[in-house]
């Protein structure tokens, strides 16, 4: 995920996160799937995932008996805080993990989920590590 964000910089990257939920509702990510940012034109501040890539991700989850838990994307030169664009397009249930890449050495990651009022709450990341 971080590798994708750094490689794609200064454009936004995106992909899917798969895994399981334990009995306490903790989400354990077991695999990620990198997909193309299908946003036409300037990709430095926007991302889109094509419907066909979405269909494949749902099928992949079903085949592997995993849950499609969410989406990751990067915010090049911006903090890992969801924008209004993110909030308006966000789906219930999904975790939205954002990788902030201020430059190739300054990276931060936060994860968010919509609450019942359709506002983002931050999710706690546990046992989370990344290397560059």
């Amino acid at each position: 995920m971080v590798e994708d964000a750094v490689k794609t910089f200064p454009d936004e990257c995106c992909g899917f996160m798969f895994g399981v939920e334990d009995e306490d509702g903790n989400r354990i990510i077991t695999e990620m799937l990198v997909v193309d940012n299908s946003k036409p034109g300037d990709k430095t501040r926007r991302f889109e995932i094509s419907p066909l890539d979405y269909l494949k991700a749902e099928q992949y989850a079903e085949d592997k008996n995993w849950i499609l838990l969410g989406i990751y994307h990067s915010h090049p030169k911006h903090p890992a805080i969801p924008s209004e664009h993110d909030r308006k397009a966000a789906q219930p249930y999904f975790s939205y993990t954002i990788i902030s890449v201020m430059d190739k050495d300054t990276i931060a990651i936060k994860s968010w989920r919509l609450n019942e009022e359709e506002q983002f709450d931050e999710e706690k990341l546990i046992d989370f590590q990344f290397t560059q």
Partner: protein
Amino acid sequence: MATVIIPTPLRKFTNNTARLEVKAGNIHDTIRELTTNFPDLKKHLLNEKGEVRSFVNIFIGNDDIRNLQQEKTAVKEDTVISIIPAIAGGSPDQP
């Protein structure tokens, strides 16, 4: 009956059911059948005017109904309909 595949984020509104069967003969009636049986789906599928929301894509196989007959697109016994949420977002406009 035709099959509708519910995307993961909306399954909490369909009793965690991923695949539903519908009797409807076209897409318009399919959506109404779903929102009648699962009323909490309505605000996620339809706007205030009762039209399919712009953030929602409906596919038959790999074809977007916008490239077919839109909501009038016929649904047969073996049709598989996918509801696909638009996935998008991005950084704020101002740094």
